[in-house]
């Protein structure tokens, strides 16, 4: 590694350090960035560590919303009250890398890296998450669907820091499914998140690793939303046809590719199966005690 590392102990220090030059880059958990550095694939100039900036840590409730600090680790998303409030995010977090990776890697890092295989992104996409950003010009917000512009490309401008991600606290089931070659330390082949909003009468779906950016499936959402009995929060689907059709519609919203991890055809099929399974789970009868 060339250059040097600055430890920012506050958001202001981080913003100041970013002004030091155009080659300054932020590092939090280091689980993506340090891999590139150690492999010699990338030589950073100045690294600004924000691991210790308190403004970015933790999460809190803000009315009907949950404000997730960009420094929130996967381990913190996996458990406790937050796992009850956003269960799909907890399910996704539990599948990331390994326990050691989850103790270090952060939500902000996942969002800013903007990999098509970013594990939290399908969940955040289904939740219509909004990214909060601080920069030299003050603060601004950017909806996630606009923030992620392409494969590892975002709307983040020079000198800016993602400070938090806002998601709604919704009443209803949430599911996250992921396909990979093994359980741990794997980059996903596909991911599907399904989020039910019992008050808004909507079913939302987010899909990852099946397009350059995480995608929603509006036709699938409308199709299944119209067939849910919202009073009972149940879906009448004794033959499984509704779930299967939902899965097909979700798959049609994707544009997967062939690569060294899988094929486009397999990904489409896996998305359909995962989406059907997720929606069945979301509306299944609770098991009698």
């Amino acid at each position, binding site marked *: 590694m060339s*250059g040097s590392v600055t430890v920012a102990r506050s958001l202001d220090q981080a913003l100041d350090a970013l002004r030091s030059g155009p080659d300054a880059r932020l590092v939090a958990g280091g*689980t993506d960035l340090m*891999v590139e550095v*150690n492999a010699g694939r990338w030589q950073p100039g100045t690294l600004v*560590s924000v691991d*210790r900036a308190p403004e970015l840590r933790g999460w809190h409730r803000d009315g009907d919303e949950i404000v997730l600090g960009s420094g929130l680790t996967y381990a913190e998303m996996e458990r406790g009250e937050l796992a009850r409030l956003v269960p799909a995010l907890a399910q996704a977090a*539990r599948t990331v*890398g390994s*326990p*050691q990776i989850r103790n270090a890697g952060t939500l902000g890092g996942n969002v800013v890296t903007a990999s098509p295989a970013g594990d939290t992104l399908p969940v955040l996409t289904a939740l219509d998450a909004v990214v909060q950003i601080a920069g030299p010009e003050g603060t601004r917000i950017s909806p996630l669907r606009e923030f992620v512009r392409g494969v590892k490309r975002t709307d983040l401008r020079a000198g800016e820091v993602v400070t938090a991600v806002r998601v709604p606290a919704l009443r209803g089931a949430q599911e996250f499914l992921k396909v990979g070659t093994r359980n741990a330390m794997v980059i996903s082949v596909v991911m599907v998140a399904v989020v039910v909003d019992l008050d808004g009468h909507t079913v939302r779906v987010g899909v990852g690793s099946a397009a350059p950016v995480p995608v929603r499936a509006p036709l699938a959402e409308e199709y299944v939303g119209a067939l849910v009995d919202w009073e009972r929060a149940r879906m009448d689907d004794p033959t499984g046809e509704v779930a299967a059709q939902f899965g097909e519609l979700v798959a049609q919203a994707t544009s997967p590719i062939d690569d060294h991890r899988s094929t486009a055809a397999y990904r489409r099929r896996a998305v359909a199966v995962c989406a059907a399974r997720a929606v069945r789970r979301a509306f299944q009868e609770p098991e009698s005690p």
Partner: protein
Amino acid sequence: MARMSLDLTVNGERRKVDVDTRTTVLDLLREQLGLTGSKKGCDHGQCGACTVLVAGRRVLGCLVLAVTLEGAEVTTVEGLADGDDLHPVQRAFLDADAFQCGYCTPGQLCSAVGMLREVGEGWPSVVTPPGATVSVSSLGPDEVRERMSGNLCRCGAYVNIVPAVLAARR
């Protein structure tokens, strides 16, 4: 090349070191502090051989910049035993013959110690049934496999590592 003075506690001992700001914790431990127990396997966060505990939490020494650990408490495999008294996890690995070449063992040991603490605090895993609570006493082989999945053993000693970790609970 910038350097910085760093104050941290390693295995209970206060250390003041002068480091290149780009140094990882793993290189600091091995190259500057002479603690070569933590191993450099893959150097990109996949193998777990460099697992150490920071404030009791397991992290990968190869991915953490040393300068971010000002004031932190680091425990390596060298710090697990109490003098000549081995840590229960170390004892269990010996009793169960939970290694072959031993290269991954320091990481496995630190990981198991950190993992048992996480379980003790009720952290769920992806294989924990929804709504269920986990405890050290009820931990089964599936949970151990999942929770130790960040530590690879190329010799394939897993068949003895899992029973060793289960035995170390007592």
